[in-house]
């Protein structure tokens, strides 16, 4: 019976084995990059909002504290969004005729909430809670970036599981004194490693095992 394969087929077989490995590796690498890309995580994407609200003006220039508008950030899972009444505290008097504020006045008149579009949105199979992070010295800017410089909010981090875990494995690298949580100008370099570790003890942050247990975030 005649040979089906020529002797050179041995080489082709070897090369194709290598090629498959390389291709699979490349494909996997491409997959991880695509999965982390801002296209899929929504990172850096700005949303068109019903009102051109600017954190740069209100926080950066006017120095309003986050909690003036996001009242529940210290007490509940959700940071809370300002009611229309909160805007009207100031805008009933200030810029009361500005066309940019017409949607706010309309919302106040008709008693209909302003429909802000979400910027950060975790999948619903994960559990996240603001109050614990704020109470244990994780600053807003660690997760949300320089909000005080953002004319329109975008997502600074991927919010993927690996991002949460990077901190949950070693929170002492990221925490700060509780008094600085709302300080957007705080520099991570302003305290040293010993101070960080003592903060971790002071705030009674639990062990790495508990912080990275699946049921902490998937419950």
């Amino acid at each position: 019976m005649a040979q089906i394969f020529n002797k050179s087929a041995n080489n082709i077989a070897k090369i194709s084995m290598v090629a498959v490995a390389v291709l699979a590796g490349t494909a996997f690498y491409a997959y991880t990059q695509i999965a982390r890309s801002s296209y899929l995580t929504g990172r850096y994407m700005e949303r068109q909002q019903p009102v051109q609200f600017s954190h740069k003006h209100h926080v950066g220039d006017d120095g309003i504290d986050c909690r003036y508008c996001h009242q529940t950030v210290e007490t509940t899972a959700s940071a809370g969004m300002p009611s229309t009444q909160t805007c009207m505290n100031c805008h009933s008097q200030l810029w009361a005729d500005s066309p940019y504020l017409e949607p706010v006045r309309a919302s106040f008149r008709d008693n209909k909430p302003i429909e802000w579009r979400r910027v950060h949105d975790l999948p619903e199979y994960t559990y996240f809670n603001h109050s614990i992070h704020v109470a244990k010295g994780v600053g807003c800017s660690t997760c949300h970036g320089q909000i005080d410089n953002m004319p329109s909010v975008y997502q600074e981090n991927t919010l993927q599981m690996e991002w949460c875990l990077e901190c949950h494995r070693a929170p002492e690298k990221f925490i700060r004194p509780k008094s600085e949580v709302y300080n957007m100008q705080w520099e991570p370099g302003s305290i040293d490693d010993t101070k960080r570790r003592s903060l971790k003890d002071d705030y009674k942050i639990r062990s790495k095992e508990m912080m990275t247990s699946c049921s902490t975030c998937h419950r």
Partner: protein
Amino acid sequence: MYRNRSSILARIGLLATVIAGTMAAGCGVRFDMQDQPRYKAYKQNEFFADKLSTRAYPEGTVARGRLNDNKAFYTGKIDNPNPNAVAQTTTDAAGNTVVTSFPDAIDEFPLPVTKELVERGRERYNIYCGVCHGPGGNGDGMIVRRGFPRPPTYHEDRLRKAPVGHFFDVITNGWGRMSSYAYQVQPADRWAIVAYIRALQATQDPDAILNSTAKADQSGTAKTPAAAATTHGGGK
């Protein structure tokens, strides 16, 4: 033979395509786990006309623990106000009417004034009030510099003499062009803010400091925020 084999291949190919297609349709494009049929805060809810999934209490109901029957604590008003008492007013230089007496406001804090309370008050004051009233209570906050009507300074005689219940009432119900802060500041925090305002006033009122330091008791619980602030070195 030849034809037979190719038809088997074709069938396997078809089967594989169907399986792959079902798998892709089954897992690639479904978001049931991502968007579950339950409501988180701020999720849009088509069931209610206002589309809010966070519901307000129905009118006329009281949540457990929210009876708020301690009138002094929750309103800053005395229990049986004299129905004939009228608030006195004067007219200031600009022609505005200014209220100078507050007959139905309580004048004693309905909770112990401690150092912690004044500290808490400082923090809350700087979040909710300082933007307009200024860090020192002079009415020169950032928002005022941007054009908001200027509030009176806390260091005028009228407000120094005003009972604590009046300050509580201003936060709860608003005053003139200032809106109510009841939604943003809970009752206990309102008293903390009032205690801090008293401490602020004391820092610019030497008499008050001298008097209240003399009166401060030993237990560390002072009768007035000025004393709490001075005996513990808090205040400013």
